[in-house]
């Protein structure tokens, strides 16, 4: 990584490290109840306490010249601070800014709130029932999105099947749990806001703040330092409105808000889901129809969920040839914290269902799980259920690479006593964002230094390093001479987001575009010096020359110097196309499909139910690998991260109250949870475009493990995480089909 030395020296400055002169600290008063009315809120005493500079409540909003209370990525349903009603435990009710933490806490204690509790609902299926309390008055059935896909005649397909299997899979709430908590510092100077925040989408944050405060885009400056992890939890607007709104009341003093670990658990979660999946198949192993119905828990506010839930629709099917497909994905409000992307977003949950289900079918047919998948796998040139023609797809190669790494063909290792061994595999598909844009600027100066201005966020994935390499290679400047500036919305151009594993492909594409423009400008500058037409000049190896007379070879620095140019600066842009019809799910889901697979061997202790993953081999399709070391870290990191939601992670609630909002009761994978043998393959293809690899080997982890557990002890686990308790109970209940 470019700043590797700073990383081992502990010198990377994250948002939590930012200190400004006169800076105040913010603290948030949060709802203690899951659902109810705010009868009275009395904050006047708090502001009079020593050291307290500002107190923010809903009364500060929707007044002439004041900020707007409601915001939201698609549905403006979320108040910056609760007004009249609270909808989950931990919802912000008031924010204070004070000279130190003690003063801020004293101020929170001085705010009196009287609540009147009302019935609440937590489970997406129950929340859709007619008797459930409505969480938002304008959504009486708690439904905020219904994504659909219709392909072929599913009734006929099920009729033509020799057999039909229907199963229900669940995946619980989990927490992204980046080690650096959400942190932001806001400062107002007159009517202009500067905010430093650990966010994955600086321009999304800017847009939201601009709308909340009714100012022009250029009046909001969003600066993003390196993140101590993101994983989707920092993918949208989170704490920025809270800190920006309270900072507006401090007379220009900057305010910092940094969440505690418990607050992290009340701020954002992975989408919980119930997935009903039904497949018709023939005895030869072909699939005649598939119907998938997904009930996504969105939490109390829609946030980015409408888009994510629509994106889950084509991701729910699996990379298989099925002539009739129907998908319905419901997004449902519940009295829990808002749900958001969690590394492998939506695909982790859908892959859990369809890849476990594929093994259930394979077992019924008595066909080897790899062979069964191969018979149905989609290849390039074939049509997917969205109607799009698959291109550059290598699902089969990914799966076979993972299986070969594990030694799928080799005889099974023998069980020993109470320890039973089994093997499993899984493959995944994930769309990235259609109709999104990435822009960049490249500046080449007379010293030969190339500066890349980019809003891509560095969050440990090594994006800045990979992008610098792409720029270095495309322009022909040594990597040591590439500088990166950004993200800072006052300086770096638009980028949709650093998520959905899109940066290498999208920002990489923008850099390739800019590099071509830069080379055009270099040819134009060199033409009068060499005395030929610009189009006759060739650029290679950092030199410009006329191939007809190889004598005059100009370096970039020479070209600039002799043209009397201090620098050449160009812009680049890359856009993705596509989109699906909301009623039919037909169209183009993604500019290209993300692809990954995994195969593992587990050991199940039949007396305790404990599952140990002994060996794990993953593979992803990278198209073209930019940095092998970083790419491998993504493959391995996904597998290790994936051990969490597969085996350990579940946010537990009791009547809406979080039970385990800390890193003691909520377990993250440690080095002891990493498989003893961890293999990784990165597949490339000739002249392929860059493919994202930030998530692809994660979604297969849980189903590969569950399939291995089935292979080991003959029980099918359908609810995550695969805890010892669940496995032991299933073993006691006897083999399942």
């Amino acid at each position, binding site marked *: 990584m470019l700043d590797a030395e700073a990383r081992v020296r502990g010198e990377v400055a994250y948002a939590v490290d930012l200190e400004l002169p006169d800076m105040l600290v913010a603290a948030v008063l949060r709802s203690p109840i899951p659902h109810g009315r705010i009868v009275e809120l009395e904050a006047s005493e708090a502001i009079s306490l020593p050291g307290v500079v500002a107190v923010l409540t809903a009364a500060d909003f929707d007044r002439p010249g004041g900020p707007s209370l409601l915001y939201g990525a698609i549905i403006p349903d979320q108040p910056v601070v609760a007004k009249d009603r609270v909808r989950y435990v931990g919802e912000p009710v008031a924010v204070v800014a004070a000279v130190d933490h003690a003063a801020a806490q004293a101020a929170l204690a001085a705010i009196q709130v009287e609540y009147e509790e009302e019935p609440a609902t937590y489970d997406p299926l129950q929340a859709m029932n007619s008797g459930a309390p409505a969480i938002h008055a304008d959504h009486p059935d708690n439904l905020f999105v219904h994504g659909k896909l219709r392909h072929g005649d599913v009734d006929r397909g099920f009729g033509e099947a020799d057999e039909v299997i229907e199963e229900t899979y669940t995946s619980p709430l989990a927490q992204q749990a980046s080690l650096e908590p959400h942190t932001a510092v806001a400062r107002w100077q007159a009517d202009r806001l500067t905010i430093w925040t650990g966010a994955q989408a600086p321009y999304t944050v800017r847009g939201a703040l601009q709308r909340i405060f009714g100012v022009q885009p250029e009046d909001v400056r969003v600066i993003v330092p390196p993140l101590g992890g993101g994983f989707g939890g920092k993918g949208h607007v989170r704490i920025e409105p809270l800190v920006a709104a309270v900072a507006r009341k401090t007379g220009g003093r900057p305010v910092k808000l940094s969440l505690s670990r418990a607050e992290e658990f009340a701020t954002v979660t992975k989408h919980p889901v119930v997935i009903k999946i039904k497949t018709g198949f023939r005895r030869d192993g072909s699939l005649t129809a598939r119907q998938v119905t997904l009930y996504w828990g969105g939490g109390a506010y829609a946030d980015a969920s409408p888009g994510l839930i629509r994106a889950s629709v084509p991701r729910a099917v699996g990379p298989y040839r099925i002539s009739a497909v129907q998908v319905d994905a419901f997004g449902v409000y519940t009295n829990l914290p808002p749900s958001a992307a969690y590394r492998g977003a939506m695909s982790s949950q859908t892959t859990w269902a369809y890849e476990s289900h594929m093994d259930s079918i394979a077992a019924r047919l008595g066909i080897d799980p790899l062979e069964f998948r191969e018979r149905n796998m989609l290849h390039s040139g074939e049509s997917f259920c969205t109607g799009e023609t698959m291109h550059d797809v290598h699902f089969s190669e990914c799966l076979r690479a993972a299986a070969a790494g594990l030694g799928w063909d080799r005889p099974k290792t023998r069980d020993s006593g109470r320890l039973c061994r089994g093997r499993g595999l899984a493959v995944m598909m994930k769309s990235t964002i259609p109709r999104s844009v990435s822009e960049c600027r490249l500046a080449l100066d007379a010293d030969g230094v190339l500066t890349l201005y980019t809003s891509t966020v560095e969050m440990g994935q090594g994006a800045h390093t990979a992008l610098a390499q792409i720029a270095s290679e495309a322009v022909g400047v040594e990597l040591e001479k590439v500088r990166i500036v950004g993200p800072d919305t006052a300086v770096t151009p638009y980028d949709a987001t650093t998520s959905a594993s899109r940066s290498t492909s999208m920002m990489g594409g923008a850099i390739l575009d800019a590099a071509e423009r830069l080379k055009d400008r270099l040819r134009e500058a060199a033409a009068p010096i060499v005395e030929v037409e610009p189009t006759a000049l060739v650029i290679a190896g950092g030199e410009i020359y006329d191939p007809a007379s190889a004598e005059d070879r100009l370096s970039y620095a020479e070209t600039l110097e002799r043209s009397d140019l201090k620098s050449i600066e160009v812009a680049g842009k890359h856009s993705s196309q596509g989109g699906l019809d909301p009623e039919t799910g037909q169209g183009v889901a993604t500019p290209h499909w993300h692809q990954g697979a995994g195969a593992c061997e587990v050991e199940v202790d039949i007396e305790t139910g404990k599952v140990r993953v002994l060996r794990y081999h993953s593979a992803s399709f990278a198209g073209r690998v930019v940095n092998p070391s970083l790419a491998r870290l993504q493959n391995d990191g996904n597998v290790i991260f994936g051990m969490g939601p597969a085996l350990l992670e579940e946010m537990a609630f009791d009547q809406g109250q979080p039970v385990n909002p800390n890193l003691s009761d909520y377990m993250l994978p440690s080095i002891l949870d990493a498989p003893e043998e*961890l293999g990784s393959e990165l597949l490339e293809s000739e002249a392929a475009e860059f493919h994202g690899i930030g998530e692809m080997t994660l979604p297969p982890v849980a189903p590969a493990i569950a399939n291995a557990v089935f292979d080991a002890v003959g029980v099918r686990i359908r609810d995550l995480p695969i805890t010892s308790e669940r496995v032991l109970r299933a073993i006691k209940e006897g083999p399942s089909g």
Partner: protein
Amino acid sequence: MIEFRLNGNPQALDVDPTRPLLEVLRDDLGLRSVREGCGIGMCGACTVLIDDRAISSCLTLAGQVQGRQILTVEGLAGEGRLHPVQQAFLDHAAFQCAFCTPGFILATLALLKEEPAPDEATIKTHLAGNLCRCGSYRNILEGVRAAAEGQVLVEGGAQ
């Protein structure tokens, strides 16, 4: 007045002895490599060495370090040169976001002082109290092995 040695240098601080050491190191002394991840001693991001033992500074009170030697990553590198454990982590790309990295490096140093030639199980047990959410454990293990094999132990560490 609390007196201790920090990265080899004497320190005398007039602070409330019941304040967490993490807060004193970060906020009062500006040591930004000492980071809070969980606040309850579970993640290891705030690890410091106190008399060569890896300790969670979030659970240590300032008064407990009276007369002790504290080492943070700021005290590791010499003149323009990385400490061998840092170098091993760098060589093996044993980090991603690196929020956890100072803690891992110090936990590794404590391990190698206690057990210069640890086997894999010992390394894993010793580092189980440090979490890397990005999932770089394979590279971390390789880095620690390389550090152990290179006999990187530097006398005192802080000098």
